[in-house]
């Protein structure tokens, strides 16, 4: 941990230096910063997800996962960027060694804490990353190494063997918890979340998620990708606990689901 913090600080300094000296894009200078998880996929994925924008490893972006993925199709992870404050534009999460790396892109907005928990699939032991874009245009990257026996992405969904989902697709079970001036939503959605990597089962996954307040305004906006687990479970913390909320989901087949929480 200490090492990561050190390199994060170093990165910030390098970034600051480069901005001062030339005003050029920071990405080039950041390559000096070694990946604390030492992954051969880091540079490749960074270019895909962060492009040419300035970035830094930042211990304030916490990604937590169990030490070992007991069930690689249902791995609980939490991304917490609370330490960065509220000036957050978006959050992207990915798993380096998944055949489909992208897990989600999230636009937290002002009415939700920058903390989310959900379950994902992993194909093998992999770094799980979260990159948080703050409004000053810098990506802050955190991550954790997840150990796993693997196979989560190319195993057929249980929905493939059991037609239960066909008559319960998009059903939502939800709970609301009060906690210290905020309100926590946890919900589970019935959906196979097929990756398209299993023979003869096309990809079929929830693609958009919105949590809307009573005025219909989205307080949570998230794009999802096939590594999100089957029958996914999400936890969000709302800053403003009053009022009713509505969950809206759409999958890549154009099915839309709406549920009052």
């Amino acid at each position, binding site marked *: 941990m200490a090492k990561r913090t050190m390199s994060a600080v170093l990165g910030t300094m390098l970034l600051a230096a480069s901005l001062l000296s030339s005003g050029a894009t920071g990405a080039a200078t950041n390559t000096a910063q070694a990946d604390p998880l030492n992954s051969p996929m880091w540079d490749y994925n960074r270019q*895909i*997800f962060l*492009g040419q924008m300035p970035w830094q490893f930042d211990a304030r972006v916490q990604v937590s996962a169990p030490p070992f993925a007991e069930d690689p199709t249902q791995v609980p992870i939490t991304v917490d960027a609370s330490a960065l404050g509220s000036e957050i534009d978006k959050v*992207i999460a990915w798993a380096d060694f998944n055949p*489909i790396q*992208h897990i989600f*892109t999230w636009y937290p907005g002002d009415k939700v804490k920058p903390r989310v928990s959900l379950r994902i699939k992993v194909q093998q032991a992999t770094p799980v990353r979260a990159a948080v874009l703050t409004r000053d245009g810098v990506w802050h990257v955190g991550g954790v190494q997840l150990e796993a026996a693997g196979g989560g992405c190319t195993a057929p969904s249980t929905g493939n063997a059991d*037609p239960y989902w*066909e008559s319960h697709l998009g059903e939502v079970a939800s709970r609301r918890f009060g906690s210290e001036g905020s309100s926590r939503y946890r919900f589970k959605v019935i959906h*196979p979340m*097929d990756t*398209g990597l299993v*023979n*003869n*089962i*096309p*990809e*079929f996954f929830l*693609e*958009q998620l919105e949590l809307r307040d009573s005025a219909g305004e989205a307080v949570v906006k998230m*794009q999802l*990708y096939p590594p999100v687990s089957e029958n996914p479970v999400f936890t969000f913390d709302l800053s403003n606990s009053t009022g009713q909320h509505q969950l809206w989901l759409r999958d*890549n*087949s*154009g*099915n839309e689901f709406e549920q009052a929480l």
Partner: protein
Amino acid sequence: MSKFGRGTGFAITALVAGMSVAGMSWAGVTDKDILNDQMTTDDVVSNGLGPKGQRFSPLKRVNTDTVKDLRPVWSFSFGGEKQRGQESQPMVKDGVMYVTGSYSRVFAIDVKTGDELWQYDARLPDGIMPCCDVINRGVALFGDLVIFGSLDAKLIALNAKTGKVVWKKKVADYKAGYSLTAAPLLVNGKVITGVSGGEFGVVGKVEAYDAKTGKLAWSRPTVEGHMGYIWKDGKKTENGISGGAPGKTWPGDLWKTGGAAPWLGGTYDPDVNLLFFGTGNPAPWNSHLRPGDNLFSSSRLAINPDTGKIVWHFQTTPNDGWDYDGVNEVVSFDYKANGKTIKAAGTADRNGFFYVLNRENGEFIRGFPFVDEITWAKGLDKNGRPIYSEAHRPGNPAASANGKKGTSIRAVPSFLGGKNWMPVSYSKDSGLFYVPSNEWAMDIWNEPVSYKKGAAYLGAGFTIKSLNEDYIGVLRAIDPKTGEEKWRYKNYAPLWGGVLSTAGNLVFMGNPEGYLMAFDAKTGEMKYKFNTGSGIVGSPITWEMGGEQYISVVSGWGGAVPLWGGEVAKRIKHLNQGGSVWTFKLPES
């Protein structure tokens, strides 16, 4: 959706907006493009090469002299293990081909290179119940949308550039046996579809949806007694009971599960502003359970596209007892008689008769057999109603000793029909209909049956027999004015693909043996054949690009024949499955 589906993960709207297919301009398909499709040779934007369904092209660069040099330019594989019957007709617009595959898949292909641009795979529930293979017959195009019907009875509109779902509507409940296999029809901004499911006691219907939004515009049941609806300003309004009232031509409650599924889709003629949809068999197959004409089963319906009302109907097989669906395409054509232009429609029925109707009012002009043998009827009366041969109707099981099986009889044609789904072509140049037909018989008997949701509702057993050792399929050139057969081509296996005729004096069609074939339209002489590697059960198209004429056809053996083949199975069991689209042109001179 693959390929473009997952980008670098920004907002979907941005993803879609940022996507462009290199080097292609997209004008969007308009109602006018669709109405003029037959004459605009640089695209194919309707099923049937024009809403009249004539499947005739004025192109003639490929003709009886040059066709011998026809060469494949590219072949595109649908991939996967889902190589079942491929009955699609491709569409082409602005350099992109849109074609469907088995299992509700859609592909967009660069026609210059054969490269895939995108692919959409519907995630189908395991519980789908298509009676006769997991096929699809093609898309409709409108604006920047690609619209098709899925096997779980949904209408799905995809963005033509990205393959992303724009809207999706449930047309009917797949768990009750409904599915969609036909290409939707696009008329005046509405997408019009029927439903499949006549083997499961569904209630057939034709529905119109706003093509841009997917909002339901009207719904017209095709079984007498069911209420139709129209939506005005979002309000659902009663729009008249089909046939006026229940029970006029059905006994008891049987109209509630009457079938009559318009599963093959329809055609449209702007001259008379009518949609023409054929309807399937009444349910169940056992006709003794439903004395009466059983309207509007085994019929042709003319429906006003604006109001959703039935303007006229013509029933080809009243009280059908042989599974003679009347779904076959109604092809509008004009001809001169006594100096007058007759607005006619030609249609070749599963029951073995070819009908010429007045398409303005549905009046019977003439009818004649287009197959060599018909046993179930002795002929047609002056109104076109069959004169039944009662000895060739399967016997009533209630009259049998144990009440379990009625007398088995031999009927010709078989239930798969003198002609099945495969569409005919009408050539303006020759004035002939080119009819893909089959010569086969069946043994059929009736059994007691009762309706159960989602279960086969037949009340019949059957098996197919061939009539000739050397052929089943016959492609016929027929003069609709006289009923005269001008020529025939005989095929060993049953024919199951559509026909295309061109101003190059050619008739194209494929066979289950895998060949794309071209015939002299006047003499029937075979001028060309090329083996595509699997059986052809789709419909060929032709268009031009850069001054060259192209011909495309899908290849992939399947459909109803291998599932229901009976004694015929031995003629086809060696045919291998496939899933590809082939494109041909002449070598550059």
